[in-house]
């Protein structure tokens, strides 16, 4: 039995311990905002926060979450998260949308650590998140807008 908190609620899972956290979240818990894109930490679609830090849930065994707190796109609520999601909508960043949960989780992580990122900080923090629709121009702009809104 593995126990952790997800989006503030305690969770107990009786699950194969090598199940990646991604599939525990999607298939066992049933939260599907976190996406599967590559399964090998290459695309960032599966990004969630583990104790507040962005991780790739597709390569993180569910056991690594034991006793910790997991936040997914569905559980975002911080000021930084609100600023990011507002900016995302205002600038119509999304195209197909499939990468965007992961992009937003990475962006929120960045702004929580660094409220005023430079262009290079943004590129460095977001390089692990692929967008095949190439919405990168707007991702940059939205992070800047969110950063402004936070100050």
């Amino acid at each position, binding site marked *: 039995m593995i126990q952790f908190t997800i989006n503030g609620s305690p969770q107990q899972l009786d699950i*194969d311990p090598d*199940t*990646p956290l991604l*599939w525990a979240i*999607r*298939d*066992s818990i*049933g*939260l*599907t*905002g*976190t*996406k*599967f*894109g*590559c*399964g*090998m930490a*290459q*695309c960032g*679609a599966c990004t969630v926060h583990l104790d507040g830090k962005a991780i790739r849930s597709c390569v993180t065994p569910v056991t690594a979450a034991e006793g910790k707190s997991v936040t*997914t*796109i*569905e559980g975002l609520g911080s000021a930084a998260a609100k600023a990011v*999601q507002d900016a*995302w*909508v205002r600038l*119509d*960043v*999304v*195209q*197909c*949308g*499939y*990468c*965007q*949960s992961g992009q*937003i989780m990475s962006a929120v992580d960045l702004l929580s650590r660094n409220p005023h990122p430079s262009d290079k900080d*943004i*590129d*460095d923090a*977001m*390089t692990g*998140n*692929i*967008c*095949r*629709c*190439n*919405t*990168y*121009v*707007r*991702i*940059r702009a939205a992070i800047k807008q969110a950063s402004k809104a936070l100050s």
Partner: protein
Amino acid sequence: MKQEGKTSLSRRQFLVMTAATGTGLTLGMLLPGCSREEPVQSQAGPGKAGGEVIAPIRFEPNAFVRIGTDNRVTVIIKHLEMGQGTYTGLATLVAEELDAAWSQINVEGAPADANTYNNLFWGKMQGTGGSTAIANSYEQMRKAGAAAREMLIAAAAKKWQVAEGDITVQAGLLRHQTGGHQASFGELAELAAQEAVPEDVLLKEPEEFRLIGTRVPRKDSNAKTNGTAMFTQDVKLPGMLTALVAHPPRFGATVKSFAAGKARAVPGVDAVVEIPNGVAVLGKDFWSAKKGRDALQIEWDESSAFTLGSDELLAQYKALSEKPGSVARNDGDVPGVLLSASKRLKATLEFPFLAHAALEPMNCVMQRHQDGVEIWNGDQFQTGDQKAVAGVFGIAPEQVKINMLYAGGSFGRRANPQSDYLIETAAIVKAVGGEAPVKLVWTREDDMRAGYYRPMYVHKLEAGLDADGNPVAWQHRIVGQSIIAGTVFEVGMVKDGVDVTSVEGASNLPYAIPNISVDLQTTTLPVPVQWWRSVGSTHTAFAVETFIDQLALAANRDPVEYRRTLLKGHPRHLGVLELAAQKSDWGSPMGAGRGRGIAVHESFNTFVAQVAEVTVHADRIFSVDRVVIAVDCGIAVNPDIVRAQMEGGMGFGLAAALSSEITFSEGHVVQSNFHDYTVLRINQMPKVEVHIVNSAQPPTGVGEPATPVIAPAVANALSAATGQRFNRLPLKLSA
């Protein structure tokens, strides 16, 4: 193309339905050319929450607009939303003519129906592709909105006992100024549903538009920003099994035998079944199915499998490029004029296979019911897929119901003329038997290695210049597989042995050259191929636009000026060329190690020019710093979405210019995931500027046309910076 003016709609063609539920009314409309009789059905329409049709006494699914007593206007969208913004664009067309408030508009994916929701450019087929969504729907959706508006006005006029002509409609409100009357759409929906169908629908003149041409916000932004948007990957049904398939290691191989014991022993694995293209493992969730698949032991029969490598293919293609192929265009006397030309230039260009690699790997959910089959999918080729799946089960296409979901990208992949991934799902459902829903999930590795690909091509070009450097002869030969051969599109799209998608962008060369020949050597391989965002232009634009630069250089002329002279008579090409040149400050000095390059190309009736600025760094590394894009797509229905598609489409092409390629080694696909099939990341994304040509022409598509232009623009910029020529994609600097 006539867009404005009166259009007749007979009473029979326009039907009004009243759904007797709390949600109110449906204004259903059957447009000219789509008339058909249907048996009476007391059933809810697409996506409706139930309720029965009370007037008229037949179900008519050809509804594009539904107005509820709750004042919500629902627009039914016949095209797949895969990121290109069609849900927003098509809804804008309805809202414009209806004079609805944008905030009251909902959108809903249409069910599969070739008679009602067909792509008007494709005959009786429903599907999304070729950047046609806005173009084919432009009149259809506006008429739907205009007709509904007239019925609301007629209802209000009766209710208020006033003249129709004195009623105004604005942002979802009908008003009669002098009488002091006012009503929302919702308040009038029930009465409007009883109104006679307008005989004529008057569409707005472009100067009357208040939504078209403005930035209305996307309808899917919220759901795609808070994690609630539903993709095929997210479907969960009671009792659903997840299926992973072990595909043949090489194309053309088949299962000889397999042992399922170890796979079945994995906890959570429910079944192991053989299907025509491999072995499927079904589990209660992804991870059990994945572990089960890993435990499968399969012996493959590879006796007739594809065993070549990319190098061998390249040698074969190059040999073929020396021999004349089927003629796609032949103006004048190319061989004769080449002989007498003052200067002759040649180029042989190589293009690799490419994977679409949409971020949502291929998947599909399917369930067998007693009376048919139900599909949940981001489906791009609805009626073709419906037929294909019906074929597997031996049922009628109408018995296959498709529930439309968002697609996490496609770039052409989900419009597979062979319906490959749907047939695979159907084969699993059939093999398992029973009524459990099955979700097929491809891993990234499956997505990369099980096909389909943009074909590999070799191009051979030769041109002759006269003493003044003007081109007098142009010879262009293309070698590669046909995308269309063997598909339902073959009849219309393969002419005299020429697959038009292999030569588009080359055979319609816009440059004024008196002698032009374009021919095609079509190859046949067991490697499955398919259209990839911008199709033929993915390779022809690079060939044409880098070679024309090479000619300009040989003539000692500026690339923009050289093109300008040769594009007389092509005002829209010229328009974007001039705009991009001007906005990029073409001709201003760039500094050492930097270069600027231009390319202009038409695809899907949209004209795009791009100027790329590059910097060459140490160690044969370069960066693309800035891209200026000019686009002429007729009326820009939503300029912000046009911009988004220019940015994104360019980025998609840039990935292929910089690094993406699928290669073969002894028949095996070498690449498997994003570590070796590399795509564009944010740190490689240049600064982008988009300039839209002001136009009153009917709108054309923007999903694809930005993609093919960037590779030649970057190659030309690198040539300007380094003096090197670039003969293959992805681009590599030599030492």
